């Protein structure tokens, strides 16, 4: 088994979903998470606040600098993530496909180099 990160690729521009649409998405996501748990692959999921809530810490000599805002401004950001533990890429892609169908946004599937 190997860990994979499923990130939700969220566009910075564009209309956010309406409340009704959001309710549908949250329902889909809850269903998907319980399916992942049932399949024994689910490790963690969460939705992230917008990038402008971020704080960046950077080492500078012996000091650590604190800056307000995201590390880089991008056209897309990680809006949420799921970590799964799956036997191989085909299995991970199956859950990635389910995720993009549930949320309606692109999903990036990326293997972990190491995980506890």
């Amino acid at each position: 088994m190997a860990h994979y990160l499923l990130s939700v690729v969220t566009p910075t521009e564009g209309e956010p979903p309406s409340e009704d649409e959001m309710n549908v998405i949250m329902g889909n996501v809850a269903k998907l998470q319980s399916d992942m748990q049932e399949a024994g692959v689910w490790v963690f999921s969460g939705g992230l606040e917008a990038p402008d809530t971020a704080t960046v810490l950077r080492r500078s000599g012996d000091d650590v600098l604190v800056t307000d805002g995201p590390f880089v401004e991008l056209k897309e950001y990680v809006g949420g993530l799921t970590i799964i533990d799956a036997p191989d890429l085909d299995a991970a892609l199956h859950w990635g496909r389910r995720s993009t169908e549930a949320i309606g946004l692109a999903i990036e599937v990326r293997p972990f180099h190491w995980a506890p």
Partner: protein
Amino acid sequence: MSEPLSSVTITRIVTEEYGRCVATLTRVLGDIDLAEDAVQDALTVALTRWPADGVPPNPGGWIVTTARRRALDRLRRDAVGRDKEARAFREEQPQDEPDEAEEGGPVHDDRLRMIFTCCHPALALPARVALTLRLLGGLETPEIARAFLVPEATMAQRIVRAKNKIRAARIPYRVPHDADLPDRVPGVLAVVYLVFTEGHATATRDDLAAEAIRLGRLLAELMPDEPEVLGLLALMLLTEARRPARTAADGSRVLLADQDRARWDAELVAEGLALVRRCLRRDAPGPYQLQAAINAVHASAPDTAATDWAQIVALHDQLLALAPSPTVALNRAVALAETEGPAAALIIVEELAERLDRYHLLHAVRADLLGRLGRDDEARDALDAALARTDDPDDRALLTARRRRG
């Protein structure tokens, strides 16, 4: 036990056995790079032993056994390799038999696993092509780079990155389940057909076309129940059969209508036609089968005039229904000119003009139809438009000659 040994013999054996050996060792060792290194090691041993001892009766088996021993020696010296060593030991018995229980399906040739790994949809098309030629075709990286007109370093990097992704992302080394085959087989066929068309576009790269046909034959042997696999092989054979007639004595290209059909390779035509008949019996048409059938109609006609154009139009209609594309519609118009006349065909071509404006053949076809309708000035303008849209010397020579005649 031995056959006369020459470097030609060894090269032939290496080409024939390379893909099979790397595929088997990849399953045994669980890693493509380890498998390739082990096979390289074994070939080095072969080059020193065989000239004295003769070629063993089963050279492939000999290479696999030697390569596995070499790989184990290597792994024993490498602490990181403990896990893989254990796996390789485990698999030493039984000899080279694929693990049926693990697959939950029929026993598969390791090369079929390798094809599906190399052509995995998570890899970009150029990477799939490079990996397939390297690992199944046994082509060296510089050869692949030359064939695709890419710097050697770029091609090497492409292959390294793809192999790294297979390892890091755990792209599985297995044949997909039957239910997933319809999704996965077209991706494999696209790779083989791309290699073929690259080889066919330029006369100097006919080795690529030969390699594609070799891969096509392998696929047909490994997946005899997939009609599109047979269709692709038939399409390649029937196209390749025309190669001797495609080039005139002065090296210029000859169009289908002007080819001396006596120069077509009769053996390839016969093999292609037999495959098309096998496909027809299956009655599960797909894009490659339909293109093969179109070529079969051409191959069955003694000349252009005697061609069953109505059949060709009907096959294009089927192809358009399955895989709509403006270039297929253009080819259909060419056939329609023979059944309904140039005026009817011209109407269709004009409808395609906007979408295919950048495609030189649209203008070349338009020029031909206008010429047949006696609209010579417009035909000349269309030829100029075609010339302005291609840099290919063969295309330009044909168009310039027509312009002069016109």
